[in-house]
């Protein structure tokens, strides 16, 4: 493989799209060609910049609600008049009327599924915690210094993870990493307690199936507690952010850490 050919395959190589044979050829060329190997690291840098730093624009919740009303889910599709409304959607008057009717219906459908939704959030929090425990390198930034951990997230998330508790000798902060909570990115802070690992996930709270009774308002947040698969989980939201604290430590200890983090 010559340099010209190698350069044209770099992106496919990165994406794992070359066949094993071509990949081997390219790898052999890269190891013997400093210029192409540099081009390869530049391609990776560009991909990394685009994947991590390109500003992302998620759809606003109001738009999602409108779309849900426009294209009703089976839970709200009960009779054919609804279908007819769905199809005669175009005129602006119909839009307003549809919104007027659909939004409460949507909320009703959502709230009836809330209990199940909260279970889903609990299950996801436990899964995330397990992923962190099982990962060979759980921490992408390893430091007990909060002022090193927090700035590390800048540019890696589409929100600023606000965390009040910086760690203390009892619950030392071990470090952080970027994870996912359901469909969105999450900041993962890892605290220790004796020999236990405690994960704190911080994520955008909007459009998640929060447990009923949650106000989502500001001030002291009411927490929702649950034990799943032997792990204790505390979920709460404060303003625009959602928090999930997961560990196998005793619920009393976990609650103490939650209190330090700002739950009621």
């Amino acid at each position: 493989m010559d340099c010209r050919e190698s350069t044209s395959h770099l992106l496919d190589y990165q994406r794992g799209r070359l066949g094993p044979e071509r990949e081997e050829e390219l790898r052999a060329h890269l190891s013997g060609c400093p210029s192409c190997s540099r081009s390869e690291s530049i391609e990776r840098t560009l991909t990394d910049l685009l994947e991590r730093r390109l500003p992302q624009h998620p759809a606003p919740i109001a738009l999602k609600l409108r779309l849900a009303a426009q294209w009703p889910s089976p839970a709200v599709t009960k009779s054919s008049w609804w279908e007819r409304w769905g199809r005669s959607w175009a005129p602006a008057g119909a839009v307003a009327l549809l919104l007027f009717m659909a939004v409460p219906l949507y909320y009703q459908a959502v709230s009836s599924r809330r209990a199940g939704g909260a279970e889903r959030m609990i299950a996801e929090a436990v899964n995330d915690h397990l992923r962190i425990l099982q990962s060979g390198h759980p921490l992408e930034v390893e430091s007990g210094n909060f002022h090193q951990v927090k700035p590390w997230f800048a540019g890696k998330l589409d929100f600023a993870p606000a965390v009040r508790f910086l760690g203390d000798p009892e619950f030392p902060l071990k470090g952080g990493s970027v994870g996912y909570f359901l469909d969105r990115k999450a900041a993962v802070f890892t605290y220790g307690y004796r020999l236990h690992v405690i994960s704190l996930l911080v994520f955008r709270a909007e459009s998640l199936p929060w447990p009923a009774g949650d106000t989502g308002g500001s001030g002291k947040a009411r927490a929702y507690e649950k034990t799943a698969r032997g792990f204790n989980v505390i979920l709460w939201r404060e303003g625009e952010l959602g928090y999930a604290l997961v560990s196998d430590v005793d619920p009393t200890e976990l609650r103490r850490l939650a209190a330090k983090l700002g739950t009621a």
Partner: protein
Amino acid sequence: MVLAGVSESRGALGREALAYADGLYNLARYLTGNDADAEDLVQETYALALRAAGQFSTGTNLKAWLFRILRNAFISGYRRQRRNPTVGGLDTTDPHGQEAAPGGWPRDDMELDQMRNVVAEDIGKALMSLPEEARTVVLMDLEGFTEAEVAQVLDCAVGTVKSRLARARATLRQLLKDYAR
């Protein structure tokens, strides 16, 4: 009158379709350059998809289908009537492409390090300065679409997608290198 089975499958399709709202909105935002038009475009996309739901065959790629509808909606007159018709361009000729295609590779490691320090805003700005098609190709690549899927969305050959993506990335490298100075 719609049969219950059809209505149910349409509902399921709708639920799956809504899962792509963020990705579609992101592309719409980079195509139109503002939130109001992006919202209109995404809403129009779903309205068109809903109308054409009967033509969608289960098992085919719903995400690619929605992206195709969005892009076609954007091209077919959407831009003409909008507030900001000058964002980017629909031209397939790349204003930066000619000079960027052969070069764009930072000359030394210092330049590479500088490139690593480019801020988010500049990366967004660099992407916005590409023509519409280049922006679409780059964003769809980031969304995890294969070149064959992008080719379906753009209605062109896979080889064309490959070369457009390479050219768009070369331009971005050049622009980011310049911003980093």
